[in-house]
């Protein structure tokens, strides 16, 4: 298994009160697999992702990547954040190059890699711009290029399209699908959009409302290139919607 989450729990302490966010989660993600974590807000899906990224420590259990326990963030797991988190003082090319510079990749090689990934996300013409000059969709493309250029085997995405308008969102979903067909990364993708999950995932993990547990796992039998209006697509969409709704309803009880 590429990612192996074992008996993972996480409790947050605020104002002397303990709030469990994740409870005994087991999850295996195979190499090259695209897994979506889906669930109502506050279900701990981002917490799970942050633990896999090494930003948070688990209260119990562990995460193994290639059989080795995760102890902190690392270049083997690229992260794409909802709020882009580009380095504002660096140009688009400078952002994409950041990880390569840390590794000491020679300049000529860096230029070639940066050019390749900016081409891949359609930003070749904007290499010398600064992040403030870009739209939200463009910023997220830079963030994706930055993660990919560092050639991690795993990409972790935390609601990456959540801050974008509906049109841009679908365009980027299309592009991410296309990129994944080229790059074959192991992807863990957090979203609360069922449509997005059905469009992108090989497998969808639906989580319960807090404390987050795994409620149900759907392995999608859909073609590689998906049609949002195909009957099988809408079938999955409505079935998963029903499961998620049960959890959302619990939040409001």
């Amino acid at each position, binding site marked *: 298994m590429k990612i192996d989450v074992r008996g993972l729990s996480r409790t947050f302490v605020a104002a002397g009160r303990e709030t469990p966010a994740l409870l005994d989660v087991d999850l295996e993600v195979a190499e090259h697999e695209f897994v979506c974590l889906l669930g109502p807000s506050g279900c701990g899906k981002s917490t799970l992702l942050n633990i896999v990224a090494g930003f948070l420590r688990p209260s119990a259990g562990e995460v193994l990547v290639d059989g080795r326990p995760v102890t902190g963030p690392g270049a083997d797991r690229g992260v794409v954040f909802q709020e882009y*988190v580009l380095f504002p*003082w660096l140009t688009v090319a400078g952002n994409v190059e*950041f*990880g390569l510079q*840390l590794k000491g990749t020679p300049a000529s090689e860096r230029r070639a890699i940066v050019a390749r990934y900016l081409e891949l996300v359609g930003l070749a013409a904007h290499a010398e711009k*600064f992040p*403030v000059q870009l739209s939200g969709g463009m910023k997220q493309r830079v963030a994706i290029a930055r993660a990919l250029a560092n050639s991690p085997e795993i990409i972790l995405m935390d609601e990456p399209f959540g801050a974008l308008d509906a049109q841009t969102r679908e365009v980027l979903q299309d592009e991410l699908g296309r990129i994944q067909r080229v790059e074959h990364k192991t992807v863990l993708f957090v979203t609360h959009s069922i449509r997005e999950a059905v469009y992108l995932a090989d497998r969808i993990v639906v989580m319960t409302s807090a404390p987050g547990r795994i409620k149900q796992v759907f392995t999608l039998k859909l073609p590689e290139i998906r049609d949002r209006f195909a009957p099988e697509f809408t079938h999955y969409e409505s079935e998963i919607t029903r499961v998620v709704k049960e959890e959302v309803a619990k939040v409001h009880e």
Partner: protein
Amino acid sequence: MSRTRALALLGVLVVWAAVSYGNRALGVMAPALLPTPGEVFRVFAETMRDGSLPRHVVTSLARVAVGFGLAAVAALGLGLLAALCVPVRLMLEPIIEFVRPIPPLAFLPMFLVWFGLGEGSKVAFIGYTTFFPMFVAIAAAVMRVDMTLLRAAASLGAGRLDLIRRVIVPAALPGIIVALRLGFALALFVIVGAEFMGADAGLGNLIMEGRTFFIPAQIVMGALLLGLLGSLVNMLLLAAERRLFRWREAGASS
């Protein structure tokens, strides 16, 4: 914009001339007490010719440069350390909070006792005065750095030193530059006080000399020159800032 500014400055000059020359004609108070622009300019020309003015300016600026430079290096190092290392911060905080409100001039006599009448006391005094505000502002700028930037960099493979050098310093740089600019303005502010006591050169000394020998025009000239130097340096630093931080407003130019 620049025309309005020039007009405003010209207006001040006109009012000054009207009041001082009017006073001379009407004899409201002793003419020597209110120097005219002409008299001030005459003192300026004389001290330029005999070379004393350039010497005073260079002396003061050298003291400011060394004192401010040492304080800036210390404030940067300790500011980073205090912002990044909680035990250091907890230790420094109460000390700084206690020392900071003491008007630096209160300690000036002690600096003369400790460092003597020479350059040492002036440089040390400027360093002491400018250190605290710069330290506090730099530590605050570093603590404001967005945590998620550090996460992003760490997941691209950045180690502790990379994080400081490639993320924290550039992200905090705008705040750091503002701190340095304030520190420099403050250095110019206190150099005069430091040179009032036991100095044989410098703009403060020039002003004190004007008092001792009763040459009001020389006092006014010294004060105006300090204003000019201060705004000149500030303008240079602002221009440098605009060049350095193109990325903050690049949106407007594209």
